């Protein structure tokens, strides 16, 4: 179980290689990567603010709960902060399990809780100014299915 909150980018392939290095008990490795999306062509940067201390604690708690619910071999959460450009990687989660169902479900669970229970806030900077990204009702509703 690893949680990293960092300014710098990460190498998805290297992270997944490291997760499974030296072990033969993992049968399924699911990962998700979130990217800075520009819908309109007007986005110049996405700024991510977070609450140092609480962020790490919240992510670790979300990961621990996933470990309690599914028989995972291991899991990983990396989330970046600071100014990011369109196309850049924002974050990743990975879940390793003996079988695919647990790995898919755990990765999905990690993402749902990370969206609305980890203290990050996004601000879009565009050619016409800046605005805070509002939380979606769907994201809050998504927690109820777990």
């Amino acid at each position, binding site marked *: 179980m690893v949680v990293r909150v960092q300014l710098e980018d990460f190498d998805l392939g290297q992270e997944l290689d490291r997760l499974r290095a030296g072990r033969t008990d993992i049968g399924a490795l699911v990962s998700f990567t*979130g990217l800075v999306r520009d819908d309109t062509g007007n986005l110049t940067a996405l700024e991510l603010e977070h609450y140092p201390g*609480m962020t790490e604690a919240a992510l670790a708690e979300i990961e621990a709960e996933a470990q309690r619910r599914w028989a995972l071999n291991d899991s990983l959460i990396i989330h970046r902060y600071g100014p990011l450009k369109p196309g850049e990687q924002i974050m990743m989660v990975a879940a390793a399990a003996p079988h695919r169902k647990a790995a898919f479900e755990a990765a999905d669970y990690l993402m749902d809780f*990370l*969206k609305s229970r980890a203290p*990050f*806030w996004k601000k879009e900077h565009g050619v016409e100014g800046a605005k805070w990204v509002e*939380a979606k009702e769907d994201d809050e509703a998504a927690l109820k299915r777990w």
Partner: protein
Amino acid sequence: MKLDVVYFAWVRERIGLPRETVETEAATVAELVAELRAREDRYDLAFSDVSAVRVALDQSLSDFDAPLTGVREIAFFPPMTGG
């Protein structure tokens, strides 16, 4: 009692500072918010719609009815948008 109050995202921008120490006798989060709102317009504006504000006590999500007994750090911020 002395409380460290921290603000994030648009709450921080509206109030105009990221962190301050407040001397208060407020018993609950809601009472502290009422005290802050009475101070200055920028606080009143930031807390004008508390349904849009979330609160954490000592870095753990809480709510506006929660007591402040023993709390050292309180944070106000909008709904989170991670991922």
